[in-house]
């Protein structure tokens, strides 16, 4: 699903160039559930942004679902994001003046699906995450766990190949974090590839493979007990 080789990425701020990714080789198969770990500044969020086509890269190769991702126009990038990728963020990133249902339905708006139909689909996904009763509530009226589940429903609605989660449990308490991870596992079981960036060990242990990033290199990677249990 994700094939990356020799990936380099630098940020240029003024006269300083910050070399963040220094040659990443990474392959993630379809249906995998991977966590990317690393301390702050290790380049894990940058890697996620590149995988999510939110950011470009300088050198190397990146294939997503068999398509070369390179020098895309903003419009193409938007289309790929919409078709193939679902995002889940630490701070949920729901649109504050739209209710739960409208938030979930938004990706379908950009697929030009009529309102009635997309609201119907959104309701189905809300039901999947157990929040149908909260459909007309605004994000401000929901708890952190509920918000994250709304965001997950939104990530799922466009039927993506990959879900990218950037510190999805960073703003949640332990109990809620585990519930969210349980939801991720169910999603993964349905065949969707999951890539989760985290710095929490117990969260990473709930994925099947852990990739450690340090100073722009992959330091180590290994399979977890979870994968062995299911293997």
């Amino acid at each position, binding site marked *: 699903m994700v094939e990356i080789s020799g990936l380099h990425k630098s940020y240029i701020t003024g006269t300083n160039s910050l070399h963040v990714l220094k040659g990443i080789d990474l392959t993630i198969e379809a249906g995998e559930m991977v966590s990317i770990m690393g301390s702050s500044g290790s380049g894990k969020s940058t890697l996620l*942004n590149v995988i*999510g086509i*939110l*950011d470009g890269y300088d050198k190397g190769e990146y294939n997503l679902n068999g398509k070369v991702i390179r020098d895309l126009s*903003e*419009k193409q990038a*938007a*289309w790929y*994001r*919409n*078709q193939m990728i679902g*995002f889940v*963020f*630490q*701070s949920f*990133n*729901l*649109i*504050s*003046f*739209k209710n739960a249902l*409208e938030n979930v339905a*938004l*990706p379908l*708006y*950009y*697929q*030009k699906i*009529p*309102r009635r139909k997309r609201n119907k689909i959104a309701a189905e996904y809300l039901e999947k995450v157990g929040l149908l009763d909260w459909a007309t509530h605004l994000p401000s009226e929901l708890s952190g766990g509920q918000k994250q589940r709304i965001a997950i429903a*939104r990530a799922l609605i*466009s039927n993506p190949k990959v879900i990218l989660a950037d*510190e999805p449990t960073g703003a949640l308490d332990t109990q809620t974090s585990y519930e969210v991870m349980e939801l991720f596992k169910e999603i993964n079981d349905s065949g969707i590839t999951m890539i989760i960036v985290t710095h929490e060990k117990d969260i990473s242990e709930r994925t099947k493979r852990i990739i450690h990033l340090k100073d722009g290199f992959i330091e180590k990677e290994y399979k977890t007990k979870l994968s062995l249990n299911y293997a």
Partner: protein
Amino acid sequence: MLDLGVWQEIFSTMGKNKLRTFLTSFSVFWGIFILMILLGSGNGLKKGVMHNFSDATNSVWMWGGMTSMAHEGLNSGRAIEFKNDDLEILDRGFDELENLSGRIGLWGGEYHTNYKNEYGDFGIQAIMPGHQVTENIKPMSGRLLNQLDMDKFRKVTVIGRIVQERLFKNEDPIGKYVNINGMPFLVVGVFDDVHEGETERLYIPLTVAQKTFRPGTAVNTITFTTGNATVAESEVLIEEIKQKLAKKHGFNVEDQSAMGAWNALKEYKQMLSLFNGINIFVGIIGIFTLIAGLVGVSNIMLIVVKERTKEIGIRKAIGATPGSIIGLVILESLVITAVAGYLGLLCGIGLLEFIASKMPASDFFRNPGVDFRVAIGAALMVVLAGVIAGFVPARRAAKIKPIIALRDE
């Protein structure tokens, strides 16, 4: 991108930010409202003053005065009185004169008019047929005076609308006789004039007056029109006529009080250019007010975009193209300016109509209102301006990078 979904998206966004939407709308509303009021008032002022030019705009009026300079052995303080032979001189000497006429004013007070038991003191004017063109009167029924009336000394009269209303009430005046100081005149026609006051008049043939009320050949006033002459040409013509009359009557051409002349064309053109100037000035003020409103919209939309950076980032992350973001911002700006502009247009025109209906027309102000084409033009301009006002903020919105917008603080 103009399908229903886009509108629903925009209206739901606007509906959820009511105060912001209202404040933005108001600045545009106000701009258009003021523009309409200014243009409409300018028009009212112009119509009011231009209304005073109820006579043919190319008319020239001349009257005799009192000399103030001794000239070729003649004393100052002589009265100059025009006579029939002056008319003949002008008629022979100047081909470009049209509708040449003498006029004797037999003003009210001394002259009483009655039909049966209805009496009135109206202005009686003894004229030649051409003067009716110069006065720009409109026949309502019957006919106007003609050369035959002059030649045959017919005691006929055309009466003004108000004279008809006062003396004849609902009766048809044509073919009836009115008495002017006891002398019967056959009513052959009724006329109307743009100036209300000038319909309180009766016109009779000059030749009749010179046989009856004012025996002799004197005429008080000479009037004529100057065809298609320009202001400069008409001024030259008047100067030439003055010289001719000065020679005949023996006064100095430089003597300002010996005779008077009023060139309607010159005054008319001056007023016209004055009001065109005023209208342009007023229009510019209005347009700048509007621009201030639009800059306001643009400014508020910029703040809106700034405020919505995160939201736009989210939208982009989940698949919004730059085009759809630009569309979102421009359409929002367009909807706000178009709706607010249209309301401003309606309110402005509505207020002008209200003023027009409540305020009596005066010599300075009447029928304020905006040309339909101007209103349409303003409406189109508002729509265009909405797009322009939205463009800069929209482009900024489209340039927002999702990774920066979504960065957790």
